[in-house]
C-alpha cells in the first residue's frame, strides 16, 4: 500500500533470512489481472491485491505474505491462496490472520518454517523500530499533504520524501532512525511554499485501502494539490494500528447524536471525522471508497445527513476497475469551482 512497503521490507529483511523484492508498482495491467481471476462482486481491494500478488509471483517471488483485519480483509488471504494455487503457481503463502484475529503463535511457527534462525527478541526490537518509522513517515506525510499544492519548485516534496524513505531503509538502529528523521524534517520544512492565507481546504475521508493506495484513487490527492487546495486526511497506518483503539471511544461520544454503535471497519471513524471537519467549517469533504465496501455504504447516508445539517458540500467517489481518470477529473473540477464560488459568496455576504 503506497510507500508503506518500505517499513514492511525493513522489518522482514531484518528478522528473516530471505531476499525481499520490491513490490511491483500497480498499473492498469495489475487491475486487469486481478479482475480477471476474482469473483464478480467482491470489493475492489481484493482485485487489486490479487493482481499485485500474481504480478509479484511472475517476478519470481515465492513467499507471499497477506495480512488483514477489520471487515472482509481478514478473509482475503484464504481465497487468494486458493485462486493462486488453482492457477498453478507453486508458492508459500503466509496468512497473518485466522478466524478474525491475528494469531501470533501461528505466525511464529510459519516464520520458523521459512527461517530456522528466526528469533523472537530481535524481531520485537525491529518491530518497535518499524512502528516508529511508520509514525515518522505519517508525520512527514501530513505536513506534505498540507503544503504540496503550493510548492514553488515542482516535485521538491516528492523527491525529498523519496530520499528520506531510501535512508530509512538503511537504518541501523533506533537512534539512527531518529537522526534521519530530524534531518529530513528540517529539510522538508525548508522547502519554499507559496501559500495564500485563505486557501480552499478539503478533507478526505473514506475506506482505508482506497485512501492509502495512490494508484487506486488515481492520484486524487495530487490532482487536488494541483488545484491549490489544502488537504486534510486522517486515515493512515499509524492511525489504524495505534490511535484508533483509544480515540474511538471519545469520537463515539462526539457523534452520539447520530450513531449509537460502531458500524464495522472504519465507518464510525469516518462519521466522527465528518463531524469534526464540519465543526472546523471546512470548505468541502470528499468521501472515497472502493465499490462494494459494505461498511462505508452504510455510513454514506449518515455522512450525508451530517453534512446537510452543517451545510457543507460532500462529494462521493466510488472506485472500481472501470473507473476512468477523465471522469474523475471532470467531477473534481466541478467540485472545485463550486466550493470556490461558495467561498467568494460567503465573503461578499460577510462584507455587506
Amino acid at each position, binding site marked *: 500500500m503506497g510507500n508503506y512497503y518500505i517499513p514492511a521490507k525493513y522489518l522482514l529483511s531484518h528478522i528473516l533470512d530471505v531476499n525481499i523484492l520490491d513490490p511491483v508498482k500497480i498499473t492498469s495491467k495489475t487491475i486487469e489481472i486481478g479482475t480477471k481471476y476474482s*469473483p464478480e462482486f467482491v*470489493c475492489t481491494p481484493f482485485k487489486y491485491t490479487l493482481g499485485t500478488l500474481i504480478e509479484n509471483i511472475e517476478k519470481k517471488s515465492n513467499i507471499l505474505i497477506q495480512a488483514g483485519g477489520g471487515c472482509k480483509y481478514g*478473509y482475503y488471504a484464504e481465497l487468494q491462496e486458493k485462486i493462486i494455487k488453482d492457477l498453478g503457481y507453486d508458492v508459500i503463502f503466509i496468512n497473518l490472520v485466522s478466524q478474525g484475529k491475528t494469531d501470533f503463535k501461528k505466525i511464529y511457527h510459519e516464520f520458523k518454517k521459512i527461517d530456522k534462525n528466526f528469533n523472537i527478541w530481535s524481531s520485537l526490537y525491529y518491530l518497535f523500530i518499524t512502528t516508529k518509522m511508520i509514525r515518522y513517515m505519517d508525520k512527514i506525510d501530513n505536513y506534505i499533504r498540507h503544503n504540496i499544492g503550493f510548492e514553488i519548485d515542482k516535485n521538491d516534496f516528492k523527491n525529498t520524501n523519496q530520499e528520506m524513505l531510501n535512508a530509512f531503509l538503511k537504518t541501523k538502529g533506533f537512534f539512527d532512525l531518529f537522526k534521519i528523521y530530524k534531518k529530513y524534517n528540517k529539510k522538508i520544512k525548508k522547502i519554499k511554499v507559496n501559500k495564500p492565507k485563505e486557501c480552499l481546504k478539503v478533507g478526505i475521508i473514506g475506506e482505508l485501502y482506497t485512501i492509502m493506495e495512490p494508484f487506486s484513487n488515481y492520484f486524487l490527492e495530487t490532482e487536488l494539490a494541483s488545484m491549490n487546495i489544502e488537504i486534510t486526511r486522517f486515515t493512515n497506518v499509524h492511525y489504524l494500528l495505534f490511535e484508533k483503539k483509544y480515540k474511538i471511544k471519545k469520537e463515539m461520544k462526539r457523534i452520539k447524536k447520530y450513531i449509537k*454503535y460502531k458500524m464495522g471497519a472504519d465507518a464510525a471513524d469516518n462519521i466522527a471525522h465528518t463531524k469534526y471537519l464540519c465543526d472546523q467549517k471546512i470548505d468541502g469533504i470528499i468521501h472515497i471508497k472502493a465499490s462494494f465496501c459494505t461498511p462505508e455504504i452504510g455510513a454514506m447516508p449518515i455522512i450525508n445527513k451530517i453534512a446537510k445539517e452543517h451545510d457543507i458540500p460532500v462529494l462521493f467517489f466510488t472506485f472500481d476497475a472501470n473507473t476512468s481518470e477523465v471522469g474523475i477529473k471532470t467531477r473534481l473540477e466541478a467540485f472545485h469551482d463550486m466550493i470556490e464560488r461558495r467561498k467568494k459568496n460567503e465573503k461578499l455576504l460577510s462584507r455587506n
Partner: protein
Amino acid sequence: MDKIKIGIPRSLYYYYFKDLWQIFFEKLNIDIVISPKTNKEIIDKGISMSNDEMCMSLKIYIGHVSYLLDKCDYILIPRIDNYGLENQTCTNFLATYDIINNLFNKKIINYNIDLFQNETELKGFLKLNKILKRNKKQIKIAYEEALKESLNIKDKKMMKNINNLKNKKIKILLLGHPYNIYDEYIGDPIVNYLKNNNIEIIYSDLFDSKKCINKSNILTNSCYFKYNKENIGSILLSKKYIDGIIFLTTFPCGPDSLVNELVMRKINTPFINLIIDDSNILTGFETRLESFIDILERKKIHE
C-alpha cells in the same frame, strides 16, 4: 396505561428470531405488527429510500421499515455484532440500527448482541424494561420460556429437514441466508419452481448450528462469518445425500462473494450460483434452473 404496539419488519433478523419474538411479546401481552410479505410496492419504496450500492436484502429491509412507519409506535431492530470473535456477522447487521435511525424519524426498540464484549441476548432484552413497561423479572421469565419454545419449534423443523434427506426424489440443497431463501420476492419463486418440478428441497439453515460451525473448518479454516459457516457446514453434513446445490445470493453480498467462491472451488457436487439483484427477478433463472434439473435427472438415471 396506554398499550404500545411494536412493528417487526419481515426481513433480515425476522427470519432468525421470528418464533422467539412472537412468543416473547405474546407472553408479555404486547401487541406486535409484522409487515406483510415482500411485494412490489415494498421493494420500490426500499430502493427509492436506500443508497444504490446497498445489498438487495438491506434495500428490502428498508422498504419493510417504511411500510411500518405509521402502523406502530416502535420498530424492533436488534444489532448483532458477534457471537465471539470467530463468529461475526455481516457488517450490515451491525449498522442497520444506525442507518434506519438516520433515515427515518421513528422510535426504535433496540438490543445489542456482542458476546465478545459480554453483551448477551438476555442482557439486551432486560435493558428493554423501561420501554416495554415490564419489570426485569417478567422479562427474564418470558425470554427464557420463549427461547425454549422457539428452540423446540426449530428442532421440529430440523427433524423434518433431515428426514427429507432420505427421500428418494432428486434432492437439492438450497443454500443461502434465511432472509433470502424465505423471502417472497427472492427465494419463493425458486422454491415454487423446484417444488413444481417434483424436487425435494433441503434448506441450509435447518441444520444444527453448532455442528455446522465445527464442520465448516474442513472447507475453510480462516472464516469468521457465523452465518456463512453455518451454510458451509450444511453442505458437509448433507453431502452424501444430495444431488445438487443451489447457491442463492443477493447482489452484492459481501461475505457470500468471498466464502461461496472458495467453497465452489473446493466441492465436487454439481452446483449452480444464482445472484439476484433488483432488476427483473425470475425470467432468466427459469432457463438456468431447468437445465440444472435436467443435468441432475440424467445423472441420476445413469447411476
